[in-house]
């Protein structure tokens, strides 16, 4: 039996019993949604539709409608891709890495963080697909026998590694999430009164009945999937960084990229988890489950990963000078002082300086401050990818090729559109899915619940 240390605070506040946990999570699913939910769903739905319209226009007309040019061949498309994949990483970190480390506080946040991961990776995968231009030829990325003779995809290419990394990551995250959801769907199935809902959740729950042997297998599967997802999450963003690091473009050609990208991903992902959870916690009255302590733990992860990112920025800068390669030195000097100095400044202040404020306990336990910080970090991390991608290529080897990148309405529309689609899916999740891992929370109630700890 797990014993809670005296100095640890309980993770489930209020005098909760097993039944209370079920009621707290299932009743919002059964009851009528608040008006705010419909308003938000409508707004995000409209933005999503606008985004889909933009994507269709892009596919119909071609990627010439983006602001790309001969020099800047990758801009917002890949910036958005890396940003969304990065956001996805927090969910897997919370559910897999923290499971292996036996961090019980993850149980209140893992379900929604994993949902966020899945929706974010869907948005991410959209960008490499549409940036191909002719999306109907996307099956070319798979090693399929074809009419061109013995022509296979090039497995030496990091772009192809990405195909395998992202698709594995998405599908493994999805089953990890769903296997955890099955027992909770069963709880909803047995709790709701409406026969239609009972039928729907009955199908979703795959006939789960909570037998002893099933739970035995469930725990083994969760543990092994966590063990598999942990190296997977690190590999995915390492491979994303290889897209740049294996090239010979000054500013991209850096061995520090894999760890730097992974910590940046976790950093931005936690910021997004906080953005979503702080709102959800308030609206769905989950204060007893997602406590101030949970928010504080997440903010501590933000300090750690933010500091790693900061060190990586400075190391990169130092190495560009220390390497003695003038193209490399120029690329970095140009980032900070060239035409895109403002993007660099946003990135530095949002990602390096601002998370350091969380060293103050007063600030990291303040919800409003955390929420604003989370938004700042989300913005900062988007600019990080923009700075890496665009400022490295906009000054080409030949000064005659130098150019700038100006986004068009399609650039903007596709990006804002993915935010809308993401929010739309997350709102549906928050309404119809069990937003907390019921079975996991019940299993820690006796060791971490306020009611039992006090006794």
């Amino acid at each position, binding site marked *: *039996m797990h014993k809670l240390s005296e100095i640890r605070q309980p993770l489930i506040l209020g005098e909760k019993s097993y039944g209370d946990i079920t009621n707290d999570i299932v009743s919002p699913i059964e009851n009528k949604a608040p008006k705010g939910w419909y308003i938000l769903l409508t707004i995000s739905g409209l933005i999503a539709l606008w985004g889909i319209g933009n994507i269709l226009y892009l596919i119909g007309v071609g990627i010439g409608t983006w602001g790309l040019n001969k020099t800047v061949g990758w801009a917002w498309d890949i910036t958005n891709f890396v940003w969304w994949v990065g956001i996805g990483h927090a969910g897997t970190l919370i559910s897999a890495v923290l499971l292996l480390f036996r961090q019980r506080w993850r149980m209140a946040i893992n379900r929604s963080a994993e949902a966020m991961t899945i929706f974010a990776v869907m948005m991410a995968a959209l960008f490499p697909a549409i940036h191909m231009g002719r999306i109907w030829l996307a099956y070319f990325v798979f090693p399929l026998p074809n009419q061109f003779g013995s022509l296979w995809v090039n497995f030496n290419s990091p772009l192809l590694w990405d195909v395998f990394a992202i698709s594995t990551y998405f599908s493994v995250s999805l089953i990890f999430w769903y*296997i955890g959801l099955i027992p909770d769907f069963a709880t909803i199935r*047995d709790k709701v009164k409406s026969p239609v809902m009972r039928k729907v959740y009955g199908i979703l729950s*795959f*006939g789960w009945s909570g037998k002893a042997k099933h739970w035995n297998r469930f725990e083994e599967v969760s543990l092994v999937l966590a063990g598999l997802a942990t190296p997977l999450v690190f590999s995915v963003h390492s491979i994303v960084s290889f897209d740049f690091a294996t090239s010979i473009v000054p500013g991209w050609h850096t061995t520090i990229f894999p760890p730097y990208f992974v910590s940046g991903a976790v950093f931005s992902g936690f910021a997004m988890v906080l953005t979503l959870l702080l709102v959800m916690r308030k609206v769905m009255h989950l204060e007893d489950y997602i406590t101030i302590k949970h928010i504080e733990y997440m903010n501590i992860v933000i300090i750690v990963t933010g500091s790693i990112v900061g060190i990586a920025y400075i190391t990169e800068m130092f190495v560009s000078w220390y390497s003695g390669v003038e193209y490399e030195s120029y690329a970095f000097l140009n980032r900070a002082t060239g035409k895109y100095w403002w993007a660099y400044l946003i990135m530095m202040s949002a990602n390096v300086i601002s998370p350091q404020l969380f060293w103050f306990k007063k600030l990291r336990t303040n919800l409003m401050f955390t929420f604003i910080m989370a938004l700042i970090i989300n913005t900062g991390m988007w600019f990080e990818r923009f700075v890496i991608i665009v400022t490295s290529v906009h000054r080409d080897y030949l000064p005659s090729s130098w150019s700038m990148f100006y986004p068009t309405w399609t650039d903007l529309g596709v990006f804002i559109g993915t935010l809308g689609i993401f929010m739309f899916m997350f709102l549906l999740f928050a309404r119809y899915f069990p937003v907390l891992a019921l079975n996991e929370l019940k299993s820690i109630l006796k060791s971490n619940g306020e009611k039992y700890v006090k006794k």
Partner: protein
Amino acid sequence: MADKVYYALYNDDDDLKGAAKKLVEGGIKVNDVFSPFPVHGLDPIIGVKQTRLGIVAFIFGITGLILALVGFQYFMIGDWPMDIGGKPNQNLLFNLPAFIPVTFEFTVLFAAHGMSLTYLIRNKTLPGMPAENPDPRTTDDHFAIKILKSENPELTDNKVEELLKDTNIVELNQKEF
């Protein structure tokens, strides 16, 4: 075939474990336990063996690894050796570093999906399967012990009641079928 089933309902996991222990010590075979979450320490009492799904994951992982390597040998070395900058692919070993990422992803892909599918099939939890829990409360805050008459021929109603009398039992239901 006439059979009788007893369901002893509890609302606390420690009471459940105590009752299961008492039953097993009284020589009764517990058929199954239904609970809303994994009750640690219950499996050894009622004789549920540790699952071997971990081994399944390993076997699937090895399969994925081998498939990836066979694929590389065929695509990149055998069928169409690539010659990049005068550095041809000579054999799999020399070119292995570039193939590590996809090999790893393929291993994880196979291990995760193979194990999860095996898990669902072995559990018989698949879309459209009927739920077997005796009471809707067992997915909420109740725990049920299932005892089958056919597995305990000498069992009588009185004996079950006798054994479970002081175990904080909520209800004892019985059904003949």
